[in-house]
């Protein structure tokens, strides 16, 4: 049997197992020549599905862990309030810029990617200027003669 077809049949069978039940026999009827290859794998899949049943935690454990986590979360947020990372900050600035542009020019041609690049370009320029200033300062720093 073609490997790709077998993969597709197994995947479809597994999906049905979860949704509607074991339709192994239907697949075996559709592919009678491949019964020998298919049947054991379909049976194994059904056995795995039967063996793997969802289990739920003990309600007492569930409740206690929740209380502990919420207490820990309160402590954590009080000690170190959340501050957005650089990526989130950048997204925030892009969103603000988008909002402003929509106000100024509702039918403007600027798309989100071009805005992102514009903001990114501005940030890179700023970094370049800062780097230039820092480098200039270090080059012109008076040197103290040693020895």
């Amino acid at each position, binding site marked *: 049997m073609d490997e790709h077809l*077998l*993969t*597709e049949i*197994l*995947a479809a069978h*597994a*999906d049905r*197992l*979860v*949704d509607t039940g074991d339709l192994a026999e239907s697949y075996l009827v559709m592919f009678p020549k491949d019964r*020998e*290859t298919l049947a*054991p*794998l379909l049976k*194994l*899949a059904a*056995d*795995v*599905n*039967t*063996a*793997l*049943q*969802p*289990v*739920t*935690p*003990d309600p007492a*454990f*569930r409740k206690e*862990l*929740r209380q*502990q*986590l*919420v*207490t*820990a*979360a*309160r402590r*954590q*947020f009080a000690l170190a*309030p*959340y*501050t957005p*990372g650089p*990526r*989130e900050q950048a997204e925030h600035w892009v969103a603000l810029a988008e909002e402003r542009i929509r106000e100024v020019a509702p039918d403007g041609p600027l798309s989100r990617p071009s805005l992102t690049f514009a903001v990114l370009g501005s940030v890179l320029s700023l970094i370049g200027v800062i780097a230039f200033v820092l480098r200039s300062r270090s080059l012109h720093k008076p040197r103290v003669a040693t020895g």
Partner: protein
Amino acid sequence: MADVEEELIERAKRDAAAFGELYDRYVDRIYSYVFHRTGNPHDAEDLTAHTFYKALANIGAYTNRGVPFSAWLYRIAHNAVANWHRDQSRRQIVALDDGMQTGHKAAPDHVTAQREEQRLLKEAIRRLHPDRQLLIILKFIDGMSNAEIAKLMGRTEGAIKSLYHRTLLALREDLARRGLVDDDQNRHR
């Protein structure tokens, strides 16, 4: 739905009650996954707690990159279980298997045989590569589609189907090696 969850995650970065809501949403799934990977409720509880404490410690750094939040949680649980296996590797692990072996009245022979088959199959599942275990747990316990699993595991849908196929073959080979199924099928492949 995704937007609601995204908003909840953002709130959970600064609000303990929102983190509690996230916990409510995922604790059963994470526990179930860890239980099937470890085979005993005691370690499943420890590792579930570890997973959520780690999630709490790192939630501020979580950013949505188009992958479901559950993927992030499963990844933490997956790593926790991997470390647990490493720590346990020198010890013989005796799984309680859903508590079915203890405290139960004597069952009819066919039921006992069926339970024994299931126990052996679960053991064989636990011997699979961790990614393969994750795949079948997501498929059969969480009832996730191939597309959802693909997103969660960072693979294509085709790769997930193929991984599922290889997983069944590996499982069958393992069972055949132990004389638990007829290995004619493996010769036919």
